[in-house]
C-alpha cells in the first residue's frame, strides 16, 4: 500500500514536469524553441526523456511498478475481505457491549424469545440485516452497509484494470491522422496516414477499406467563429458500400473498430502549372492556416521553380494592403511569390514547406479563381481552375476502451460504496430472568461516528418503547 502511494507521488511529480516543459508529441515546436534557447539543458533533458515524460521508459517502468505493487497488496486483501464477508457474524461478549460508546441496558417484562423477536423486527424495519450469531441463542447481530469494504476493493481493482486497459489498447491499437481532399479516397493502410503511431503488438492488421470524402462543409457565425464543420463520407469495403455518414466534431464514424474523428479542415486550391502545352503540375494542394487566409506551397521540380502561395477566399483591400475578409468564397484569390533555383528535393523535407535557402525570388503575382496567367519571372503558365476543401481526421483503433470504461464504472461504484455508505453494527443481548428479561444493546460504526450516535440513540429510544415498557 505504502509503496503504491510513493510510486503515485513520484508519478504526480513527473506529471507536473510534463505540464511545465514542452512535450514533443503535443508541442514539437516548443521543444525546438527550448533547444535553441538552452541547448545544453535541453540536451540533458532530452536524454532524461523530459520532453516526452509520459512516453519515456522510466514513466513506463513507474507504471509497471505501480501495477506490481497494487497487485501484490490487492490479492491478499481481496482474499481476506471475501473470507470475512462469508464468515458467520461474530458474536459479542457482554463486556464488549457494555464498554461500547453506544451502549444501553434496561429491563423488560417480556420473555427472552419475545424480546428478540420484537428487537429483530424493529432493527429490520430500520433496514438492518439481522442474524443470530453462531451458537448464541440469546443474541442478535444487526448490520448495515456490510459490503462497504467491497467498495475499496472495487476501487483499487479498477485502477489495476484501468492500467491493463490502457496498456492493452496502446499496444494492439494505433493512433493516426489523415488529411483528405474532397473527392479523394483514403485507403485504410499504413501508407494512407499522414501520421501514425502503431502499438508494438498491432502487427499491421490494417483493414484496407476505402473511405471517401464526398463533400466537406464548414459554416461560420457572423463573427467568423466556426459554427460547425461536417464531412460527408462513404466507406466501401470489398466493393460494397458499408457506411454513409456525416462526421462532425462530437460525431465520429466507426467501422471495424476504427474510429474517424473530425479534427481539422482547410482549403485545397487546385493549381495547374504548364510549360507550353505540357502540364507539369495539376492537383489540389493542401493549404494550412485560417479559413480567411491559408498558405501552401507548389513545387515544380521539372522547372526548378517553387511557389509560396496564400489563398484568400474573400480578398479585400484597404490602404494598408490586401487581407482576408471572411471565410466565404466571395472573391477567391491566390497570391504568389515565385522562387527559382535548387528545390533541394534530394534532401529529406516537409512537402508543405519550401526551402528557399538555395533559391531566389523572381516575381510576385496574384491569380483569381478560374483564371490563368504567366507565372511571374518564368516561362510557365499557371491557372487556378478549382477550389476544394480538405478535411483532417483523427483516426484511432483502441480495443482497450471497453476495458477502460469498465474500470471507470467499477471505480465509481467503488467510491460511492466507500464514501456514501457506512458500515454500522449493533448487537442485542438478552438475559432471561424468569418471565422477565434484561436487555443489553450496543452499536459500533467505523465511519461517520457522529451520525451513528444519533441513529443509535433513536433506535434505543424506540426499543425501550416497543420492547421495554408496556406489555401489549
Amino acid at each position, binding site marked *: *500500500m505504502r509503496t503504491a*502511494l510513493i510510486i*503515485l*507521488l513520484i*508519478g*504526480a511529480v513527473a*506529471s*507536473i514536469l*510534463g*505540464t*511545465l516543459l514542452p*512535450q514533443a*508529441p*503535443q508541442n514539437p515546436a516548443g521543444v525546438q524553441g527550448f533547444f535553441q534557447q538552452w541547448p545544453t539543458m535541453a540536451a540533458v533533458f532530452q536524454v532524461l526523456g523530459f520532453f516526452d*515524460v*509520459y512516453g519515456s521508459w522510466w514513466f513506463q517502468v513507474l507504471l509497471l511498478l505501480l501495477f506490481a505493487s497494487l497487485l501484490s497488496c490487492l490479492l491478499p486483501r481481496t482474499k481476506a475481505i471475501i473470507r470475512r464477508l462469508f464468515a458467520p457474524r461474530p458474536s459479542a461478549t457482554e463486556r464488549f457491549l457494555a464498554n461500547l460508546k453506544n451502549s444501553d441496558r434496561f429491563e423488560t417484562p417480556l420473555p427472552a424469545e419475545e424480546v428478540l423477536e420484537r428487537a429483530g423486527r424493529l432493527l429490520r424495519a430500520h433496514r438492518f440485516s439481522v442474524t443470530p450469531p453462531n451458537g448464541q441463542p440469546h443474541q442478535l447481530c444487526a448490520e448495515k452497509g456490510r459490503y462497504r469494504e467491497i467498495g475499496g476493493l472495487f476501487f483499487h481493482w479498477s485502477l489495476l484494470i484501468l492500467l491493463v486497459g*490502457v496498456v492493452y489498447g496502446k499496444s494492439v491499437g494505433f*493512433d493516426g491522422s489523415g488529411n483528405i481532399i474532397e473527392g479523394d479516397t483514403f485507403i485504410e493502410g499504413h501508407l494512407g496516414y499522414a501520421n501514425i503511431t502503431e502499438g508494438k503488438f498491432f502487427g499491421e492488421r490494417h483493414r484496407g477499406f476505402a473511405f471517401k470524402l464526398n463533400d466537406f462543409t464548414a459554416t461560420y*457565425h457572423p*463573427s467568423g*467563429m*466556426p*459554427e*460547425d*464543420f461536417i464531412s460527408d463520407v462513404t466507406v466501401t469495403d470489398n466493393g460494397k458500400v458499408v457506411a454513409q455518414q456525416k462526421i*462532425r*466534431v*462530437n460525431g*465520429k464514424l466507426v467501422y471495424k473498430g476504427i*474510429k474517424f*474523428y473530425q*479534427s481539422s479542415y482547410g482549403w485545397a486550391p487546385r493549381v495547374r502549372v504548364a510549360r507550353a502545352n505540357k502540364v507539369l503540375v495539376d492537383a489540389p494542394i493542401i493549404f494550412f492556416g485560417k479559413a480567411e487566409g491559408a498558405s501552401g506551397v507548389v513545387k515544380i521540380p521539372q522547372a526548378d521553380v517553387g511557389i509560396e502561395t496564400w489563398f484568400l477566399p474573400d480578398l479585400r483591400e484597404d490602404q494598408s494592403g490586401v487581407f482576408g475578409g471572411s471565410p466565404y468564397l466571395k472573391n477567391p484569390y491566390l497570391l504568389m511569390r515565385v522562387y527559382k533555383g535548387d528545390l533541394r528535393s534530394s534532401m529529406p523535407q516537409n512537402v508543405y514547406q519550401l526551402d528557399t535557402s538555395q533559391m531566389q525570388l523572381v516575381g510576385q503575382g496574384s491569380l483569381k479563381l478560374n483564371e490563368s496567367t504567366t507565372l511571374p519571372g518564368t516561362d510557365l503558365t499557371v491557372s487556378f481552375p478549382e477550389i476544394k476543401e480538405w478535411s483532417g481526421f*483523427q*483516426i*484511432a483503433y*483502441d480495443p482497450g*476502451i471497453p476495458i*477502460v*470504461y469498465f474500470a*471507470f464504472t467499477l*471505480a*465509481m461504484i467503488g*467510491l*460511492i460504496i466507500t*464514501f*456514501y455508505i457506512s458500515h454500522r453494527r449493533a448487537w442485542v443481548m438478552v438475559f432471561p430472568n424468569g418471565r422477565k428479561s434484561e436487555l443489553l444493546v450496543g452499536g459500533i460504526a467505523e465511519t*461517520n461516528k*457522529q451520525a451513528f450516535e444519533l441513529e443509535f440513540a433513536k433506535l434505543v429510544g424506540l426499543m425501550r418503547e416497543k420492547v421495554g415498557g408496556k406489555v401489549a
Partner: protein
Amino acid sequence: MENISVVLFWVALVLYLLSAVGYFFYFAFRQNAVGTVGTFLAVVGVLSHLGSIATRWIAAGHSPIANMYEYTSLLAVLLMVSYLIFEFFTKSKVFGGLATGSAFIFMGLARLFYAEPTPLMPALKSYWLELHVFTMVISSGILGVGFIFAVLYVLKQRREERSRPRPVKEAKARPAIAGGAVAAYAGDSPGFLGRLPAADALDHLSYRTIAFGFPLWTLGVIAGAIWAEQAWGRYWGWDPKETWSLITWLVYAGYLHARVTAGWRGRPAAWLATLGFAALLFTFYAVNLWISGLHSYA
C-alpha cells in the same frame, strides 16, 4: 440581453460585498437586525446573480459554462445558494460572512476573466459539456468548502490550545494587563471563532466534505475522459488540464489514504487539504492562464 446580464452581475457583486459586511458586523456587535439585513442582501444578490446567468444564457444561446468567466460566476452562485440553504435549515449565520465574502472574491475573479458571450465552438457542442462542467464545478465547490473547514480548524485549534492551559483566574486578570484586544481573542467574548464548532468537529467536517467531493471530482474527470474520446479521439492525452486534474485527484487520494489508512488528523491533514485545494485552483486557473492546451477557452 448582454448588457442586462452585466448590470445584474455588478448588482450581485455589490450586494454580496454589502451582505458580507453585514454578516461580519453582526458577528462583531451581535446585532440580530444587521444579521437579518445580511441574509436579505445575500438573497437579493443571488436573485440578481441568477438573473445575470439567465440573461447570459439567452444572449449566448447555450448554457453559460463555456469559459472561465461563466464557470467562475457559476461557482459563486452555487456557493451562495448552498450557503443560503444551509442557513435556512440550521438557522445559523456562523458561516455567512465567509460564504458571502468568498462569493464576492469569486465574482471579482470572474470579472477578470470576462468575455463577451459567444456561440459554442463545435468541439463544445455536446451534452457532455453540461455533464462534465457541472460535475467539475460542483465538486470543486465541495472540495473548496472542505478546504475552508480545514482553515477554520487550524484557527480554532490554535485558539483552543492557547486558552486551554490557562486557569480561569488568569484569563480574567489579563485584560487589565494587555488590554481589550487580547481579551477579545482569548475567549472573554467568543466572537467568530467562539461560535464555531469545536476544532475536532471542524477537522471531521473537513474530512467528511472532502470525502463527499472526491467521488464527484472523479466522476467529473471520467466524464471529461469519455467526452474527450467522443470529440478528440482519445480518452486521455496528457493535455495540461487533464494532467493537473489528475494531480489534484492524486493529492486528494493521498489525503483520504492519510486519514483513513494512516490515521492522520488535525494539522498535517489540514495541510494536505490545503495542498489539494491549491492543486485544484492551479488546475482551474493557472493551467488556462499560463499553459496552453486544448482546454484554453477564453
